[in-house]
């Protein structure tokens, strides 16, 4: 009895480590033994998918991968899925970043997906980073030709894709990835580009819903779950899909922890401890 009490006491003192070991086991388990839980697809993901499906080859699409490398796992897989779809549709993609890490993360996306026979400068271009956040967005909306050199230092005049970019209205679709308040992007691009889709961190979902409901945003993909749903629609399971199994287990564990913690608290409180 005293040994059991001693063990419980040790576990209680080191509850953090116990919880962390539990989380790690639940994260590793589906990696070794995939559960293959089916993913239901949200209506907004279907809306985003259909929007890109309806694009014609040669349509101009603007993309902004505006997140930091540490946040890759939140929006990166969904951006990979969307960019893969864009290349499959043979649209022309202009990438411009308003976050400092955007250009290199765009390079990362382009290397991880299959761009087929798309040619740089003709089918896609990376215009690099424009400093100033909302000022930079306003500047780009006012005149996309303001950027004179692409990320690699090539004059924009020499790039075939930029010959058809004369104003912001030439873009059929704007896709931006964001891990924070999406207000600056929506304020500056809303009403300028026909449709805007955002890949948003799940933590910012409730901030984005008013804009989706108000029509300023056409659709949104909520982080990795949105990415997994998009991969399911494209029938190309990837990183996002592989993360979902462990997500189910870990979130269940979190809910149980909160319930157990509250039961223990209320028991002590009702006993007057």
């Amino acid at each position, binding site marked *: 009895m005293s040994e059991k009490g001693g063990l419980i006491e040790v576990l209680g003192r080191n509850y953090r480590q116990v919880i962390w070991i539990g989380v790690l086991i639940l*994260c*590793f388990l589906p990696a070794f033994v995939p559960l293959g839980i089916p993913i239901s697809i949200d209506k907004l993901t279907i809306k985003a998918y259909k929007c890109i499906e309806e694009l014609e080859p040669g349509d101009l699409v603007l993309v902004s991968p505006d997140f930091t490398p540490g946040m890759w796992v939140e929006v990166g897989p969904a951006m990979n899925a969307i960019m893969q779809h864009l290349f499959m549709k043979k649209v022309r993609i202009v990438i411009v970043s308003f976050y*400092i890490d955007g250009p290199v993360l765009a390079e990362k996306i382009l290397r991880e997906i299959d761009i087929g026979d798309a040619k740089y400068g003709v089918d896609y271009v990376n215009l690099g980073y424009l400093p100033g956040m909302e000022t930079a967005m306003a500047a780009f909306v006012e005149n996309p030709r303001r950027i004179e050199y692409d990320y690699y230092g090539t004059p924009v005049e020499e790039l075939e894709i930029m010959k058809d970019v004369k104003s912001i209205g030439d873009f059929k679709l704007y896709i931006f990835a964001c891990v924070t308040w999406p207000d600056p992007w929506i*304020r500056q691009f809303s009403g300028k580009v026909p449709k805007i889709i955002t890949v948003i961190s799940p933590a910012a979902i409730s901030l984005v819903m008013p804009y989706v*409901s108000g029509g300023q945003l056409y659709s949104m993909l909520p*982080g990795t779950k949105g990415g997994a749903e998009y991969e399911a629609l494209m029938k190309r399971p990837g990183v996002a899909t592989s993360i979902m199994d462990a997500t189910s287990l870990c979130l269940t564990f979190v809910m149980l922890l909160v319930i157990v913690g509250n039961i223990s608290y209320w028991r002590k409180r009702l006993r007057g401890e």
Partner: protein
Amino acid sequence: MEVIASLIVAILTLMAWSMLYRETVFYRFVEHLIIGFSMGYTLYITIDTLKKIWISPMLAGNWILIIPAILGFLLYTSFSERYRYLSRWGIAAIAGSGAGFAVGRAVPVQIIGQIKPFFLNLREVGAPAIINWLVVIITTVTTLAYFTFTREHKGALGWAAKIGRWSMMAAFGATFGATIGCDLLYIIERCIFLHKAPQVYLLPIAIIVIVVDILRRGGK
């Protein structure tokens, strides 16, 4: 090269996660390494962008760019106790323009754009849509009532503010649930990475190192 990169990243991940066991020099090494990498990339992109938006246009004849360049360099006087006041000129320009662009677009997009959806032709929609519409209106108006601080929250305003608080708890609860979900993603992604070869072979080594350290410290 891919194998080397995978092993390096696996070692860095396990070094960072040594913090779960206890504060170690390994964790601090990875932390400072990340800071250094971030600074190095920022330096590169700052110089690269400066060449494109200042040096090249100025050499092409746009000499007036010397004025904003001076204002920009004045920002660095913030490190001097004596000349700090000069940095306020640049800060004021950046903040003023940013505020101007934000305010200019806030009215049509964030105020008018958010009020427009309230105008609904109730005859064209069914009962569930009307109920949802009422819920949205009530939660929006009561949330705005909560942020009205010019009058005391008493009576009708008090009740409206209370309902607003509950509505915000629903929104923050949704954010809270989503935040937990997305913070777990980091751990899951790293575990999926670590379970692949060759980095999976480092896991038993890491466990042995921890066990040896526990035994060496006498189970403290």
